[in-house]
Every structure is written in C-alpha cells, then in structure tokens.
C-alpha cells in the first residue's frame, strides 16, 4: 500500500505506508481476522455502501439530463428526416430562397436569415461588452484598492441577477428611444439596440470569469515582475494577463454562448423581422426569439413545429460546443497555474 504525501517543497511524493497488523480500513472480514462477527457493524457497512451507490446513481442523473435534453429536443425534430405530412423535410431549413416565412400558403423555412440575425446581434453585444468587462475585471483584480474591490464585484454580480425580461423591458421602454435619437435610426427596434441590451446580460459573465482567472494568478508572479522594476500596469498587461489568458478565453467563449442563447432580450428589443442584411440599424430576428415567438401558436406535430425544434437542437449543439470549449480553457488555466485541474 502506498500513499501520496506532500513534501516540504510542495511536490508530491509517494511513500509506502508502514505495515500494520490489521489496517483500519481493511476489507478483510472479522471472521478472516479471527474475530467474532459483529452483525451491527456489518449491517452499518452494508447500508453505507448502498448509500454510496445510490448517491453516485443520483449523480448519473446529471449526465442523463443533458442527454435527455438533446434526445427529446431532437426527437420532436426527427420526423423531418422522412418528411412531415405538410411537406417539411430536413432540407427545408436550408432550401432556397433565403427567407423565413413559416406562415404562408407556401411556407419558407430557410434558417439562414435567423442565423445571420443571431450572429449580428451577438457580435454587436460581444464587441461592446467584452472590452468593458475585461477592462473592469483588470481594474478590479489589479488596480482597485481592496476596500473598493469588495464593493465592485458584488455590484457587477448584482447585474447578473437582473432577470433578462427586466433588462429587455428597460431596453424596450427607455434605451430604444435614446439609441434611436442618438444615432438617428429609422427603426426604433433594431439589431444595434438589441446588441447593447444583450451586452448587459453578458458583461457580468465575462467579468466574473475573467476576474476569477486574474485573481487566481499567484502573487509570486506579480512580485517577481515588480521586483524587476516593471510598473503595476506593465505587470498587469504583460505578466498577469498572459498567465490568465486561458481563463479570459473561457470567459469570452462562455459569454458568447450565453449571448447566442439569450431569448427574452432579443425577443423584446430586436424588432423580430427576418431581414437578410448586415445593416445593424435594421430589425432582426434571432433563432432563440423565433422559437419563443412562434412555438406558442404552432400546431403540435406540424412541419413548422418540427422545424422550431430543429432550430432548438441547433442552438443546443452550438452552445454545448462553446461550453465544452470554455470548460477546456478553464481547466487549462488551472493546470497552467497550479499544475492540476
């Protein structure tokens, strides 16, 4: 038997355990050890082991849920493969023309305008939100006096606690007018306003994750840099930021994932018309908002219903990939800084 020890330098060392007559955690039965049976202990140990198995089984549930989500969202879209009774197939979302017009005599289900709309709004939100969130994270982690720091972090986390429907209604009632007046836009509800509102939703995410990454960088790094004569700002940008870069990447990726899936804000502020254009001043319709707006009125089992589930499955896949990537980067950060995940 061996056991891992941490030696004085902090490294791991594997040492054999000193031999004992009957180790405390021996799985040998009392009978084998020449002792009278202790039924109460046997019973308790049995219960203990059953409990461990049961609790592990509940943990499996978490995995099951992820698969169930994909299976049941996918299942409702599956009949598209052999075609629904009203003529929608798996190819309909990609068939020309590039229009999303699900309710008409000849429905058109091309998802390209929706994907473009999603990307447009998301990109605007990322361009506005990422620099702000990263700069704020850098300030909190590197420059802010400790007393101030204790206030900034919970305050920005409070922003994360604002329900998206509240952000949406604020953007709809107040922000939209301001933005329209300030930029002289023709449409009150458009991709740009939706992007600004969406930025509020992703700033706390990018901020929190990247701030955590920056604070996780050991103090030694900073002290070494400062001792070499670097200034605080140089240390922050050239030493701490590069050390925390996987965590910052994770923050941006996870913020991106949240922006793509965010529903209520874009549903309320984007104007919801599926125009195929790159102009940020025009209304857009995103994938998530399309599902939210149309699912309630659709006939269960119709082609339109199936295609909405198809879009949902697509959203699930995109965000799953982004989450997985973000997770990988976060693990890489911990490996890089502490040598283990």
């Amino acid at each position, binding site marked *: 038997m061996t056991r891992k020890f941490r030696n004085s330098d902090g490294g791991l060392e594997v040492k054999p355990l000193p031999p004992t007559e009957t180790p405390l955690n021996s799985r040998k039965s009392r009978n084998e050890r020449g002792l009278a049976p202790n039924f109460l202990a046997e019973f308790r140990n049995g219960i203990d082991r059953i409990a461990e198995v049961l609790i592990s089984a509940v943990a*499996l549930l978490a995995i099951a849920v992820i698969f169930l989500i994909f299976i049941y969202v996918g299942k*409702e879209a599956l009949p598209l493969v052999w075609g629904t009774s009203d003529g929608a197939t798996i190819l309909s979302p990609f068939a020309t023309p590039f229009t999303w017009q699900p309710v008409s005599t000849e429905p058109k289900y091309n998802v390209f305008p929706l994907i473009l709309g999603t990307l447009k709004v998301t990109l605007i939100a990322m361009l506005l939100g990422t620099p702000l969130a990263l700069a704020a994270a850098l300030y909190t982690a590197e420059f802010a006096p400790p007393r101030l720091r204790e206030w900034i972090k919970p305050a920005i986390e*409070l922003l994360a606690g604002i329900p998206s429907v*509240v952000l949406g209604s604020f953007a709809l009632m107040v922000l939209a007018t301001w933005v329209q007046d300030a930029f002289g836009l023709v449409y009150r509800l458009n991709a740009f306003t939706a992007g600004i509102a969406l930025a509020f939703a992703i700033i706390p995410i990018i901020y929190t994750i990247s701030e955590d990454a920056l604070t996780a960088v050991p103090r030694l790094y900073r002290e070494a840099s400062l001792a070499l004569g670097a200034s605080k700002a140089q240390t922050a940008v050239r030493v701490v930021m590069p050390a925390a870069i996987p965590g910052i990447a994770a923050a941006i990726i996870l913020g991106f994932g949240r922006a793509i899936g965010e529903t209520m804000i874009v*549903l309320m502020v984007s104007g919801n018309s599926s125009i195929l254009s790159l102009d940020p001043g025009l209304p857009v319709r995103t994938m998530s908002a399309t599902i*939210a707006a149309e699912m309630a009125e659709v006939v269960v089992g119709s082609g339109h219903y199936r295609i*909405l589930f198809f879009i949902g499955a697509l959203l699930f896949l995109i965000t799953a990939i982004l*989450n997985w990537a973000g997770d990988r980067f976060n693990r890489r950060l911990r490996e890089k800084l502490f040598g283990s995940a």
Partner: protein
Amino acid sequence: MRKFVDRTFVVLSLSATVIILSMLFLIIGNIAYHGTERLSWEFITSNPENGMTAGGIFPAIYGTVLLVLLMSLAAVPFGVLVAIYFAEYASAESRLYRWTRMAVNNLAGVPSIVFGLFGLGFFIQSIGKAIDQTFYPGRLLYAQPSILWAAMTMAVLTLPVVIITVEETLRAVPREYREASLALGATRLQTVFRVVLPQAWSGVMTGAILAISRGAGEVAPVLFTGAAYFLPRYPSHPVDQFMHLGYHIWVLTTQSTNVEATKPLLYSTVFVLLVLTFLLNITAILIRNRMRKWATR
C-alpha cells in the same frame, strides 16, 4: 512618459468599471423612479383588470411563488445529493466524476429557451402523454402545459445553481470534522448527513435562494410549459396553468392593447420583480460572504 502611459491605463480600466456600474445604477434608478409611482399595497394584492390596463398583479405573484416552491421541492434535494457526490464521494480521477462534472457545467450553459423546448418535448409530450394514456384514457390532463411541468422544467434549469453552491460550501467544511467523526466510529453516511451537511446548511439555503431568484425571473422556459396570459382563478391543481411575474412583464410590454395605460403598471411590475430578485440575491451574497469568512477563520 512611462508614468503617463501607466496612469492612462489605470484610468481607462477604471472608466470601464464606472461605465458598467453607472449603467447598472441607471437601470435600477430608472425602474425604481417610475416603478414606485403607481406602486401600492392594492397593486400587489389585486387582480389585473380591463385587459391589463388597470388593477394589480396578485395572481402573478401567487403563481410565481407556487412555481418556485414546486421547483425547489424537486431541484434542492437532487442538487444537494449531486453536490454530496461531488464533494464527499467522488474521486477526482474517476470517469463518473469527470463526466458528471462536465454535464453539470454544460447544463449551466444550455440556453433557457432550449429548456422550454425540453419541457414541452419531454414532460408534456412524453411523460404527460404517458400518464394520461395510462391513468386517464381519453382525457387531456397531464399532456398539456401546466404549473407542474413548468416547475419541473425550471427545476432542471436551476439544478446546476444548487449543485455548484452546495458543493462549494461542503468543500469549505474543514477536513477535521470528517476525520473526528470517522474516528469516533461513525460511518461515511452518518458523517456526511449528521456532521458535514448540518455545517453546510447555509450553502443549501444559498443554493435554494439563488435557484428561486432564477426561477422567478426566467421567462423563456415557462413560455410554452404552463404560463398563461390571464387566469380568472388561481391554480389549485398540478395540471392548472398559472400566471408568472416575468411572463406577465412580457405580456404587458408586447401584448398590450393600450400602451400608455399599461406603462405605469408595467413599470411597477418590473420594479416588484427586480426588488424580489435583488432581495433574494443580496441575501445569498450575504450568507455566502459570512460563510467564506467562517471557512477561512
């Protein structure tokens, strides 16, 4: 020169922080200013009237409370068990641990609208249909949107919140507590449930509070799993539909027949929801801060 660059850099990053914080205060300030104008005890305790242009929001508050209670009943026990597995039983190298960990992280990032689709496809179209076919042939009870299925959908959405919060607290319980308990001859199960979990009670509370705050504000998952525009009576059975504060805000903003008449009501409703979620979140933050101090003591 170097000093100037340095200064500029600090000032720039400070101004980003200031911009974010001032937007936060702007949002809160605007909503608080307009939201308190029409706010009264009557508004909170009465029903909507005249096609949502008058009256109050009591049914929406009632429905939301009922929803988050049902949701907590499902999410908290399961979440705590998974957290116990993570913190007390799993070994970091085991495959089950790595897969569950990844699943929970992934679950936290699934878009809320996808949870709505899941609720519709899984709970209503599959489980609900199966219940109806088995126990109530020819009747439509469980295979339709209801508060039960909305709560279950919301429970799945808030599960990672509970797991992550509780796990953090469990890990903060000093190792010595477990060792002392085991040394006294307690089994692992007894140690977990009689020694560790009682110490982590604040974490369970925080997890539940954060989950409730999420559940009260998320709208996308209940859009087609049970929320209703308006109901003349309160939900009294699991298969009843319900009114939801967040959903009510969406209804007021987009489905109103008279925008000007609705606006003050809308602002007050937003204010109520915001106060509710903030109170919940601040409580959670306070409990967590106290807990952290306790853990590092």
